[in-house]
């Protein structure tokens, strides 16, 4: 290929002293030869060159990657998405920050918890402990989330009364946001007044405890001792 493309005036001795001496091909010739080159690309003179194919594949790969990257890292093109690591978007409305919602929590509570703890949150004396004014509910977020996610089995004391608790791992089948809604509801209903629980916190705890069996209450209390009032 080289030979054909060589300038005719290439053989002229051109030991050009540096600093501009060398006389290359005339400019008109330069343009013409190169213009010829780009037209002749379809008929390579010697054999088959892999370079173009390689480059085409490479660029297709780049294009594919670009599309992938953009769809995964653009926060649904929402004007309010600034942080890649922010809570992931719900499909509908872009990555709106999670809002713990006591109303949703109430619905979920009635469906999942009220059978034992009752809609009033007072539980059943002697069998199921109350949630109202219980430090187990209004105290440490971690302890509450762990209790909901993994459950526990053993003796616990709530508001001075002993119960032989057997809390199932009810949260294991619920989403982080659902657990957060429930926890927020029970922390704020019936005169309880504790801070809401975020879904990120639930996710964090879930990740920390993994798929664990029910707690023994003493272990749970070892990790998060009961707050004194």
């Amino acid at each position, binding site marked *: 290929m*080289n030979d054909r*493309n*060589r*300038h005719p*005036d*290439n053989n*002229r001795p*051109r030991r*050009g*002293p*540096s*600093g*501009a*001496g*060398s006389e*290359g*091909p005339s*400019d*008109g010739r*330069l*343009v*013409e*030869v*190169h*213009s010829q*080159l*780009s037209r*002749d*690309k379809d008929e390579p003179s010697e054999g088959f060159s892999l*370079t*173009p194919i390689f*480059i085409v594949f*490479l*660029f297709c790969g*780049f294009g594919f*990657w*670009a599309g992938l*990257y*953009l769809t995964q*890292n*653009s*926060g649904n*093109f*929402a*004007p*309010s*998405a*600034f*942080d*890649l690591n922010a809570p992931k978007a719900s499909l509908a409305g872009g990555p709106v920050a999670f809002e713990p919602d006591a109303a949703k929590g109430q619905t979920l509570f009635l469906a999942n918890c009220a059978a034992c703890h009752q809609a009033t949150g007072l539980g059943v004396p002697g069998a199921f402990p109350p949630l109202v004014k219980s430090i187990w509910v209004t105290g440490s977020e971690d302890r509450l989330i762990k209790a909901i996610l993994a459950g526990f089995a053993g003796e616990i004391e709530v508001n001075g009364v002993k119960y032989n608790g057997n809390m199932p791992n009810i949260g294991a089948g619920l989403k982080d946001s659902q657990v957060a809604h429930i926890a927020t509801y029970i922390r704020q209903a019936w005169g309880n007044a504790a801070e809401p629980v975020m879904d990120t916190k639930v996710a964090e705890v879930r990740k920390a405890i993994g798929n664990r069996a029910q707690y023994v209450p003493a272990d749970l209390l070892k990790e998060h001792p009961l707050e004194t009032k």
Partner: protein
Amino acid sequence: MTQENRSGRPQGRPPEGDSRLTRTEVQLRGPFLLFFISSVIWLLAASVLGVIAALQQGSLAGGPFRDCEILTYGHVAAAQHNLFVYGWGFNAFFALNLWLLSQLGRFELRNGWLATLGGAVWNLALTYGVVQIFAGNQTGFGLLEFPREVGPVLAVAFLLAGFWPIVAFARRPTGHSFASQWFVVAASFAFPLTYLLAQLLILWQPASGVVQTIAHSWFVSNLLLLWFGASALAAVYYFLPKVLGRTISGYYLAPVAFWSFVLFAGWTGPAALIGAPVPLWLQSVGVVAAAMLIIPVIITAINFHGMLSTEGGWSRAWNDTTLRFVSFGAVAFTLFGALNAVFAFRGYNAVVRFTSFAAGQEQLLTYAFATMVLFGAAYYVLPRLTGSRWPSAKLVHVHFWATALGVVASIVALLVGGWQEGKQLAVASIKLADVVRAGSSWNYVLSVSAVLLLIGHVAFALNAFGMILKSSAPASAGRHD
């Protein structure tokens, strides 16, 4: 070093008499020399300011210029940056682009006085703007620091001074066109558009909130890539085949390089805003564009390095002053593209964000690539236009070694220093003051390299002005054929 030393030859070609000047060159000689001389003067001014800024950087108390309001770092750095870009970069590329497209299109510049007028207005507006920066009248947006009334004047001056390459392309006699021509047309057409839109949205009718910042990032990437990048690529596409006397390897890929470069360059701006309070999708678009810019970089690497790698191209390039500078630039461009792609990614970018790293990347593009190519071009074009030799071979060597060492040292200091700084900043327990102290040895390197660059520029200016003075004395008589 090489035979040029032994034979003492890097002195420009022997005077060949005025008949060698083509009609094209006779016509553009006046405006060319105006642009060139002013560019070199600005380059000297910028390098003096560069030394001052380097001495101040990193010193809380302001180094030797403490308590001097005019020479605060905020003034000196802004003035240096603007003088280097608008004073040196624009004037020099006005000259080179005009010469290049006139040559390639056999264009005779009949209305040279318009270009001269444009150059004069450009330089006057620039002087006014820089004085205003020192007086404390600046806007706070990098490379748009001049007070806003300068903007329209610069835009008009650009149309007068920088639009001729497009005319030359339109009037070219043959139907053929060459890669250099596309790149120069792109540079000359894209800049005024970008500049006017940016002026409008940032300074005259400011967009609300961070949209200003977004517009600014778009402007800066266009300025750096589509003016400096495209113009310098045009020069490499011309000088390598011209002086080596070969055709460009893989030239059929050059149109792909051109279009992908122009296509992606305009999108890379937001890559400089990763982590900033701008929507995530904008940041990601910037990352993707900066990564895709590797396509034209790969192709130009095939074009340039392929040509240099065959038949002893590198050693020939080393022995020719023009090619030595130009191929230095070509290598720098490949490096720039690779770094630009890698450090657009969030993981790396988060480390080097807000450090000197970005300045290092810019230095790689505007100095190691564009400026070195401009020097190489000057060694080729000036002897032709003035019809005389470079007065001193020694100064040519001083120029090359001082600028090459200076720029390599400064880029290493900015990049490596920036990386180290970023690594330390990522650890919250290391105090900022300790980070700054740990980087002080890099500041020392930066100061030395700023002095080296200044030495190189003085050598270049002495040589160039000496040649121009020598030729202009008996010039007026027999220059026309």
